[in-house]
């Protein structure tokens, strides 16, 4: 059996072109043209683009498990937020004596709560490498534990969706508590610097944006690699007929667990990149609604395509930014309508629509057209 290539020729071209735009062109446009010039990208847009790209990683992670393994997690926001909290804790420790209370060790909210010592979970977060490791490890371990229990006892489909939602809801309630030691309601904010660079400086923001773009590119290639291997085919088989795959002697539990953990790691990465760019992390990120919204990004782009997830995240969030600015009361109507229209009228999302359009045009121009077999 021949292995599917990582990307086709057009695929690589598009990939490289997008990478060029994201990593070279946008940073150039944000620095080189004189401020006020029509080509200049205003400074506030850079972290916004960065935020979109973080969401794209999140969508990619969900598409990997939903589109390819049929696991619709409605708790992926939890992994994202946990990664964000890990990074936020590092950034809190970097504030040092510049906080309101000027305590060299304790973050402001701990001084406010009259705490004497740094709680155990915060130890080591002054170190960037450790924080970065935890941003991946905590979501990874949680996903492994959760997935092991769930997949082993064959909780699938809607039941899985509901308990993942319960998971993120439980975490939401937990992080709202002050005694948890993660800033309670207010979360973590007021960051000063990252790795010694001023977090507000335009150059740092461009740097963070570029790192995010590179991370998105790598995440895409990793996901693409996973789904093009034999293992990827196994995942598709699990999605379409899990019992049959199990009867053929495959361990579906192991396969699902692996891809679930990988997906959670990507979420943690996205969260860790997200927090320094938006400057705050609070329990609101655990809202079940946020996780459900991710599913709609994927559905809008086209599930089971990876590219669609990225596209969907970017398109929906662009509309969101624009609508919440132009007509805030319309946003929920638009989002709600999007959920309904996409599920009813375009189950394959934007990409599916494009493919259908292309096929239809080819069929009408070449009478005896041989249809290409769709690989998904």
């Amino acid at each position, binding site marked *: 059996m021949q292995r599917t290539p990582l990307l086709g020729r057009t695929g690589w071209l598009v990939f490289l072109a997008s990478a060029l735009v994201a990593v070279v062109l946008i940073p150039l446009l944000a620095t080189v043209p004189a401020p006020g010039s029509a080509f200049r990208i205003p400074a506030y847009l850079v972290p916004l683009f960065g935020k979109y790209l973080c969401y794209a990683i999140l969508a990619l992670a969900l598409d990997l498990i939903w589109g390819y393994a049929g696991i*619709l997690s*409605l708790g992926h926001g939890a992994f994202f937020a946990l990664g964000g909290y890990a990074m936020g804790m590092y950034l809190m420790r970097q504030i040092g004596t510049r906080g309101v209370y000027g305590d060299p060790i304790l973050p402001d909210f701990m001084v406010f709560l009259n705490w004497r010592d740094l709680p155990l979970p915060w130890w080591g977060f002054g170190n960037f490498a450790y924080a970065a490791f935890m941003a991946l490890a905590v979501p990874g371990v949680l996903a492994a534990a*959760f997935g092991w*229990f*769930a997949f*082993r*006892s*064959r*909780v699938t*489909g*809607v*039941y899985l*969706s*509901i*308990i993942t*939602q*319960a*998971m993120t*809801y*439980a975490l939401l*309630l*937990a992080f*709202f*508590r002050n005694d948890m030691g993660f800033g309670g309601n207010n979360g973590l904010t007021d960051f000063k610097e990252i790795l010694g660079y001023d977090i507000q400086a335009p150059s740092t923001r461009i740097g963070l944006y570029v790192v995010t773009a590179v991370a998105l590119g790598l995440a895409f290639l990793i996901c693409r690699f996973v789904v093009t291997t034999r293992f990827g085919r196994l995942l598709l088989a699990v999605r379409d007929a899990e019992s049959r795959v199990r009867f053929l002697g495959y361990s579906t539990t192991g396969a699902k667990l692996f891809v679930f953990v990988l997906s959670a790691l990507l979420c943690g990465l996205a969260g860790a990149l997200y927090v320094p760019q938006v400057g705050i992390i609070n329990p609101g990120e655990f809202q*079940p*609604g946020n996780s*459900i919204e991710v*599913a*709609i990004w994927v*559905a809008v782009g086209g599930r089971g395509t990876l590219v669609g997830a990225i596209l969907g995240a970017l398109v929906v969030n662009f509309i969101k930014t624009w609508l919440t600015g132009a007509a805030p*009361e319309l946003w*929920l*109507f638009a*989002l*709600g*309508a*999007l*959920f*309904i229209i*996409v*599920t*009813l009228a375009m*189950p394959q999302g934007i990409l599916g629509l494009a493919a259908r359009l292309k096929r239809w045009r080819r069929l009408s121009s070449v009478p005896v057209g041989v249809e290409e077999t769709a690989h998904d």
Partner: protein
Amino acid sequence: MNILRVLMLVGLLLAPLAVHAANLADADLAKLTSGLAGDGFDDKIAAIDALGTSGDARAVAILKALADGKLAATETKQILVEGSAGHFADAVTGSPVAPAADPVRIRVNNRLRGQIDVALSRLTLYSADPADRLSAATEALHRPSLDAVPALDKALATEKDKGVAAALKLARAAALLQSPDAAQRLASVNELAASTDSQVRGLLGELVGGHESDPKVIAAAKTALAKIERQLAYIEIGINLFQGLSLGSVLLLAAIGLAVTFGVMGVINMAHGEMIMLGAYTTFVVQELFRSFLPASLFDFYLVVSVPAAFLVAGAMGVALERTIIRFLYGRPLETLLATWGISLMLQQLVRSIFGAPNKEVANPSWMTGGFQIMGGFTVTWNRLVIIAFGFVVLGLLVLVLRKTNLGLHMRAVTQNRKMAAIMGIPTDRVDALTFGLGSGIAGMAGVALSQIGNVSPNLGTIYIIDSFMVVVFGGVGSLVGTLAGAMGLGVVNKFLEPFAGAVLGKILVLVAIIIFIQFRPRGLFALKGRSAEA
């Protein structure tokens, strides 16, 4: 404004109707009051105490005016109340007075204020309202002092209400614990043993902990303490059980509708919470209609009208949604989940656009306010009791519909084997729409109940959606008995966890427990068996 105040004050002063104990003659009261013009604070305190034990209703207004710094004294020690600047009235009779010289304002310091509070609460012992008297007696129990004994004795002598008399006796016994006479203290301890007040427990605890020297009293206090502890433990179990059932009935109401749409039809209805919200807003609208168009005497019935109204509104919305959206998504559970989530967002925003984002206030009808006391500290409120009963009634009605009506028969037939049902001539499309409407309508009725115990806001539904799913999944999809058991079980467990873990942590623990439970019984407590289980 100030004239009004004077009038009110005068009215208060002249309100002998509100008097329970016998009033003093004007002259006697004036004599007591004149002590307030005394030179030192000690004289004033004595006068305040005397007013406090006088039992005269007019003393209340005088003491309040004193606390507000509105009393002044003439040279002849006549006490005046100042209404508007420069206008005075006699504090006792309330008749206007034009003083010859400027009267001297009577100053109050914090020590006097404390004294005034005590005196006022003692005066409340003679109020005409038994509830006021009861709260004054409880207050006296919580601040026991030997000084209060004469006032309590006096109140006891005239008290006719049994409950208030018991509370007064308790307060008296608590005050006499400070008596120098050991025999008196022993008698008090024995009397207090009958109480279930946590304050009494504290008092006896202090006694045992070293405030007492007499070994007999200590021994009696220890026995009394043990008895009280036991009583309190029972009461706590009772309270937890009742609150658990109350929470359980709320969960039950929230989940019954979902047990139909999700449990029977298999539709993952994320807009279920919004059906509850629609019901709550219907209640609000019905309430406003009653307020504007019907006489106030009928207002108490608005809730009775709200129940069918909410059922119809939410049910009609359910039928409309089923016909336009959900029927295209049967057999695609994950898509259904996303589409219904979209519906829920739109409904929330729709309600927010119409009614505005702030909470709407829905009043309890008079027959649902208040409650009754079962034991000390254990009060059953009517609204909770009504909601528990309502939950069971709704569940009962649903069971009747499913078991005894044609529609119920058709519903069960369609869910068990759609094709076969269609062949037998059952209009499956219509049954689908009606079933979904029924589930939504029940959710609407739940909204009526929930509007009585919480805020009515556009996000009302989001609060209950996860809980509802937990109840249905925990109880077993498709099983109404399971839904009942799940709701009550979760409610009671939650309330019993709360004292140890706190409300939020308790809830988290319950969620985690359910997540783990589902691993072991993925089909819930009462799993369907046989062929339909594989659907």
